[in-house]
Structures are given as C-alpha cells and as structure tokens.
C-alpha cells in the first residue's frame, strides 16, 4: 500500500525544508489559499476525518465551532496537542522527528481554514529530540516566508510557537494543556465554557492532535473522495498510524488503512510473538487507558473506531500492545493502576482518591494478602469513578483498564488471592 502520511519516512534528511519541498511539500498550502476557508472546513467534514488523539470526534465538526469573524482583540487560536503521553503511543513523535514540515504545512492549512493567527504546539517535555527537530523546522519555515507575515504573498499571516511541557500526562487533556500553556498548573478546566468559546488566554481555541492535522494536506491534495476510499466505511476513513509494541518481533509505527485486523497487525506487520512458542494472551488496542482484550476477542477484529468499540474497547490513540501468555496480568493491572494514580492531577475527589485506592488494593493482592471481596471493591470503586463523576476522563482512563483486567483475568487475581503467588509463574 502506498504510504501517504509517512511518505517521507526513511528519506534522507526528510526533516529539512528543501527535501520536503522537493518531494511535493508546501503544494497543498498553495492550493488551500485558493480555497475559501469555509470550503476547507466542509471538505474536512465531508472527508470523515476523526480525531487521532483518542476521542475520535469529527475534526470538521470541531472546526465548525470556531467563530467566523475573529478580531485582533479576540483572535482564534489553534493548539497542536503533541503531548503524546498515553503509554504505548509514539506516532506523533515520528511525525515530528521525521517530517516536521508536514505538521507545519498542516497547521497552516488548518489555520487558514479556521482564521487562526497563532498556532501553539504543546510538545511533551520528554520529547527533546522531536522538539529540536520541530523547532528547527519552524525557524526554517520563518526564514523561507512560510510562517509570519504575508505567507507566500497570500496576505495571510500566521505565527507558530513550540512550547515544551513539563512532564505531566494530564497535560494531554486539552483544557489542562491550555492551563499549562498559559504558565499555570495543568489542571483540567470545568466545561462549559468549551475551548471554542473560551480557550487559551480566554480566546476561541481548537486543540487537535498531531496526526489528525497531518491528514489535512492529504485531503486538500488528493481530495475528499480519495480520503474516503481508504478505510472500511464512511465513519472510519483515511490512513491511520498504528503504534505496535509489546511481545512482538517487529514493533513500530505502521501506516495502514482501518480495514486492518488486529491479527494482521500483530502477526503480519508485527511479525508475530517475540518469544518462541508463546501465544497471544491479551491485547490492548488503543493505549493503556482502554479496556484490555483477550486473545479470543482479537479474532477478526477490524482496527477501526467502531469495530473496536463494539468489542467493548476503544481504538483510542491506536497504541496497540500485545502480551504473550507469559505475562502476569495482575502485575500489568498494578503497573497500569500505578501510572494513573501517579498522573491524576488530584483535583476531583473520585480520581484523586480512587486511583490510589485501586493501586493499593491490587498491590496488596499481589503481596498475597487479598481476599475475594477485594475484587468487588475494585469493581465498585472503579465504577464510582466513571461516567461523568469527574471533570475530565482521566478517572475513566484509570477505571476502564482496572475493570477489564479484573473481569477478563479474574482467574489470575483469584490465584494470587488463594495461593499467594502468580498463576503465570507456575506455568
């Protein structure tokens, strides 16, 4: 299959402006300038592009919430969410390392469409190298007149600023990201007001994921119909980047259509199980916050937003990781619970207290001091954290894996409870 999003991956000096231009870069922005901004929003809407950051919300619809008549006093802002922190996710990193000008061009088209005068890139603090690559590219673009005043003599002006985060998972949540970007503590904000009314510095703001934006030049260059032709149906269109990791021979980022199945991903593209003789035991399709799937549930599972949801999980950020049958699922559950307890901002009571509670219970079970009643407590506590009892979905992100691990690998928990040791070690 032709690679489009990753077409410059593997090309020497792909991060340089001249290479990007030689390979057809910055043609889409020239084309976009000839289109009416609203026409671009309609194209993105019609393309069926859904957010690649995890929620899968229609990008075009989101863009439509932005005011049409920004003023110098009340400008529109675009924020690029490059705080890629969901465990297992590393696709945006490669886009920024290997093709930073694609992101810049994507931002320019999106800025033109949403009448944005300033783009902020909020990049994960640990991403030092991607930050340098992207920031160098931004300077290159400024020098070439691709950013700043009167871009390509179109009369359109737009600035771009790359801001590094300080290492908090919660700052990937768009409103916490905005607080952090403003220099404050990264706490999710109450909604309403929504970012399109009151975002960064109180101005209308759209927050988009890196990969989401990188699809926009493709839609402009090749058209809506081409974009919709990739993928299984109208609701799951365009190329998708899958981050495959875990117990596979060939981990990495794969650009594939959403017709790909989980088994194809793991066994063809991923090269199968890493360790000889091991079988697939569990599979997380969309990052550590989504419910885990058993090997049985992965049979004939198409890796698109809706098919994964029908199996009771989520495509999320398409951070897929596979675990073989030598994996202690209680340990995985504990490690996952620890992550969310560590990363909860602490604002809302259910999340602040619940994440730590679940971690403590699982840790006690792993010490061999658990009881069967503990499993009911985990389920009840996790249930009480979910579905809108908190400001942001981090509590859900902590609760969903906990619930699914206890439900689907109950035997392993019970083994710890009854025998004081792992079921897996005894294999």
């Amino acid at each position, binding site marked *: 299959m032709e690679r489009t999003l990753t077409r410059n991956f593997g090309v020497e000096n792909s991060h340089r402006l001249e290479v990007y231009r030689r390979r057809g870069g910055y043609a889409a922005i020239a084309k976009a300038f000839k289109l009416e901004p609203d026409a671009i929003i309609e194209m993105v809407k019609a393309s069926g592009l859904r957010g690649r950051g995890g929620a899968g919300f229609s990008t075009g619809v989101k863009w439509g919430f932005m005011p049409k008549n920004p003023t110098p006093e009340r400008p529109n802002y675009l924020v690029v969410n490059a705080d890629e922190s969901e465990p297992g996710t590393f696709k945006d990193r490669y886009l920024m390392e290997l093709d930073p000008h694609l992101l810049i061009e994507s931002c320019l088209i999106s800025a033109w469409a949403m009448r944005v005068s300033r783009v902020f890139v909020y990049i994960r603090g640990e991403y030092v190298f991607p930050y340098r690559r992207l920031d160098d590219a931004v300077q290159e673009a400024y020098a070439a007149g691709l950013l700043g005043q009167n871009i390509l003599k179109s009369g359109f002006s737009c600035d771009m600023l790359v801001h590094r985060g300080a290492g*908090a998972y*919660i700052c990937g949540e768009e409103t916490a990201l905005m607080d952090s970007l403003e220099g404050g*503590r990264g706490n999710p904000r*109450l909604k309403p007001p929504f970012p399109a009314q009151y975002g960064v510095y109180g101005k209308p703001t759209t927050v988009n994921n890196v990969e989401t934006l990188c699809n926009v030049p493709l839609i402009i260059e090749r058209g809506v119909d081409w974009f919709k032709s990739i993928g299984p149906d109208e609701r799951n269109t365009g190329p998708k980047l899958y981050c495959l990791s875990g117990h596979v021979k060939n981990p990495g980022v794969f650009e594939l259509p959403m017709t790909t199945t989980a088994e194809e991903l793991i066994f063809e593209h991923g090269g199968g199980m890493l360790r000889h003789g091991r079988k697939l035991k569990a599979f997380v399709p969309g990052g550590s916050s989504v419910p885990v799937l058993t090997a049985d549930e992965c049979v004939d599972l198409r890796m698109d937003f809706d098919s994964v949801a029908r199996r009771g999980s989520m495509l999320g950020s398409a951070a897929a990781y596979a675990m073989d049958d030598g994996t202690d699922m209680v340990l995985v559950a504990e490690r996952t619970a620890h992550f969310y*307890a*560590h*990363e*909860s*901002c*602490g*604002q*809302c*009571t*259910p999340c*602040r*207290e*619940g*994440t*730590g*509670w679940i971690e*403590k*219970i699982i840790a*006690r079970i792993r010490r061999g001091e658990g009881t069967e009643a*503990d499993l009911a*407590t985990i389920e*009840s*506590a996790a249930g*009480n954290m979910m*579905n*809108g*009892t*908190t*400001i942001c979905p981090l509590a859900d992100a902590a609760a969903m894996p906990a619930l699914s691990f206890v439900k689907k690998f109950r035997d392993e928990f019970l083994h710890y409870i009854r025998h004081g040791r792992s079921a897996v070690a005894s294999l």
Partner: protein
Amino acid sequence: MPTLTIDGRQLTVPDGTTILQAALASGIEIPYYCYHPALSIAGNCRICLVEVEKFPKPVIACNTAVSEGMVVFTQSEKTKEWERAVMEFLLINHPLDCPICDQAGECKLQEYSFRHGQPTTRFQEEKSHGPKKRDLGPGVVYDWERCIKCTRCIRFCEEVTKTGELGMFLRGVHEEIGTFPGRPLDNPYSGNVVDICPVGALTWKKFRFRSRVWFLTNVPSTCAGCARGCSIDVGAFRNEVYRITPRLNQAVNRWWICDAGRDWAERLNAPPGQRLSGARFTRQDDRSPWTAAVEEAAETLASGATAGKVAVLASPRATVEELLLLSKIARGPLGGAAVYLPAHETGADDELLIRRDRAPNRRGAETVLAAVAGGARPTAELEQRLVAGEVDTLLALGPGLAGRVDDEPPVLGAEALARLRHLVVLDAFRSPLSDAATLLLPVTAWGESAGTYVNFAGRLQWAAAALAPQANCRPAFVLLGDLFGLLTGGSAPARHAVQAALSAEIPAFAAIDWDALPASSGQDLAGADAASAAPPPTGAAEKLTSLGVPAEGR
C-alpha cells in the same frame, strides 16, 4: 427567568443561576465543599453531583446553570449513590482525628458523612500519611492528612485578598496546599482561610487545641476594632473569649473579618494592671463605695459647672446609648459644657475591611453629639483651653472601653493633664487619663455589656454582652445614668427609654426598630446606604448580586 423542578418543587429563578444556588435559595439541601458564594466555582469536590432528567451523566449542581423545564432529583437513588461514593472517596485516606480535631462539631465531613455517607469502611489499606502541622504563616497551621483539596483557601487568597500566597503543589493523592518560598501566609485576613476550610485542615494557632467548639457559646455581636464594625460571633467559655469568627453580613463585612479582630481577645485579656478595677475616690463613709463615688463625682462636676470651668471628653468607643446620656449631662446640669471627641487613627483604610479609624462608633458619636451637645469638638481645643486655664474639671469617658490602649498615643498631653484640678474618669483599661484621675469609676469593657454602634457607613449594629462583667466595675451606661439622675434630681433612665429618646430627638435614628437589632445584620441610619460601602462582591456572589439573588451559604 427559567422554571425548574427540584424534588417536585417548582422554582423560578433568574437566568444564569446554578442548580445549587437555586436549591440553597429555596432551602433545599445539596451538599457542597468546594463551592463558596464569595469564591469562583472550582467544581472539584464532586459531592454536589445530582441527577437531572434527560442528562446522561451526573452534573455538578454548583456549575450547572438552570434551564427551562430542567428536572433535578436530589433524593433519587442515583444522586444518593453518587453522594455515598464521593463521601467514601473523601474518607478513605482521611485520618480519624475527630477526637482531637478543632473542626469536630462544625465539620462538613462529619455532617455529610452522617447524612450522606455510610457507617462502615471498605478501605483495608494503610491511609496516606503526610505533614500534620505545617506553618503556612504566623497564624495558620496546615494539616495535610485532613485536607480535602477543595482549594477554597487558595481561591480566597487569589480572589478576595488578591495576595496569592497559597498554591497547590504536587499531584494526585500527594497534592498539598503550600506557600511559595519566602512568602508566608501573613496577610491581615489570613484567618478567614481557617473559617472557610470545610474540614480541620487549616487551624488558627491561637485557638488550636484550646476548646471543643461545642463548649463555646457563640454570641452574635459587633467588633469594636475599627470603624467597619464587622459582624462577629464571640465564642466564649467560662467567661473567657476563646474565638471570634465572622458572622455573614452583606451590608458590612460579608463573610470576612481581619486577623486583628479575630485576635481581639488578646486586647481583652490584658496583662495585670491594665484592666481597671475598684472605684478610686476620696469620700469614705459606711455606704456602698459605688454610691459614695458617684455622689462625689456628681458634686465635683456640679461645682465645676457652677464655676464655668467644666468640660466633657467623650469616646468614639462608647455606645450611642452611653453617648446620649453623656451629651444630656453636658447639655443640662453641666450648663452646656463643650464635649470633645478624640481621634484614634492608625495606618490607612484598606480595600477590604480595615479602617484607619480604630473606633467602632465615631459616626454614632458625631451624630449624637451634633444633635444633643452642640457637636463633637477636637481634643486639641481642649488642650488649649486647659493650658489657658479655662477648664479645670473634666468628665472623661474612655478611651480604653473596648480593650487595652497601652500601645496608643495619649488622648491628652501631660502638660494639659497637669492643669486639671478634678478629673472624673469612666474607663475599663488603663491609660494616662485614668492614671491622672482624681476620681475613677471602672466600667465594663466591650463584650461585658451591650449597646449599639454606628459604623463609618451609617450601619447601626448591636454589640452584645458575651461575658459576665469583671469584678469591681459597673457598666458605663449604669454609672452615667446614676450621674444623670443625681445631677438632674431625677432617676436613672432605662435602656429602652434612652433608645426611645434617641429616636425621638435625633432624626437619623427616627426609624430605628431597636427591639429588632440584636443578632440582626443591623439597620442603616436615615439617609445612609451602608451596603454600598461593603467590600465588593467576589466570585459567585458577584454574579448572584448582578442577578438579584441573595448569596446564600458559607
């Protein structure tokens, strides 16, 4: 004006009101911790989650604006389950400190645990541990384990005092309230964070571990610290003031008081020798010393009046009732003696409550003196007349009526004082004036006898008697009444008669309903608009005020 239904009750409220405010205004209870009417909405405690018809998820009552036809259930199974769940989360790591916690008895965690929680715990783990006594500043101590991270204290410092000393540090269950390096919590209103703390995490050093709150009688009264006259509750136990806390009064101080007012007990519990006790006079016979002393005072003043050399020194710390009696004594039996009113000013007015005028009743004194005694005259003139020999007999009330004054400049200079042949002093705390007195009548201090003050903006408020009087002193009102009776040949007037006279003789007091004053938020003098001089509303109250909705709750 949307109409909504809460638990079957239809309410019509202004557009923009939240579910919680609508419920509070109509007496429906929805529990809350982080919401405070004077602070911005934080929405973090999650205890106010309610079920709303057609809403797929729970909503927080504090941040959800009502809309037409909204149906809210505060007693449904779902709402109760969410309340139980949040209570459980709040309590799993909360220490069982109640037996030694200052907040016990007035703790929202206790109250809501009782009403919305469950009797047992499922929490088997070791509770989280952290600092139990961290100084945030000179007055406030922080207990990390008790803190529920509602951020009320942080928002108070950001939005009300605008000093921003407090911040939230760390993350998740490790979150803690703290100060920034080199910037302790030492603004003059720091004690209010203790009041608004819904739990026992913030305590006031001077009250910490001193008394269980249920032993205190909280007497509604008025602070005497400055011309603001904040509404307060005086928490007393065994005739000692343990704690002073603000009492909500939208026309004067809203939810707040300053730290000096909070610590007013320190000015009452004076070091030995500061509090005056026992009448000092010359005539000794077999009658009660008070009878003899007052009689001697009356004769001294009468002979001074005959010689035309008597003057009167009033006090802006006296009550309007006392000042009316004093004015009448000056005007009648003392032959129209001039009445002087000292200034007690330090510092400057600030933007919140504190006034540079450190007396609670200057406006009341000036109003009464202007109407009855020909106006309040400056003490500089009295000093000149003393030095010139025009005055040799003085009847002085104060200046130590509300608390010790040993750190204040003297009301009259030593040179002027030395010219006095007869100095009759009614006061509670020692001053150069009482030291020089030829006849001293110790009186009850603020808190031991009742009366009314008028604040700088014209608000008439009741200061109650929260304590029994100290030994060997009598209320100034009683002594002045006796003097008035002796000097006029009549009887001492009762309080209600004096209050009736105030209303009858002084137009500004004409419409006062004196019986309604105690424990109320006070009444404006005619023509005054005290509320306009109250600190500006902040947070949710600012919006509520613009909507015309009373800012309920605290």
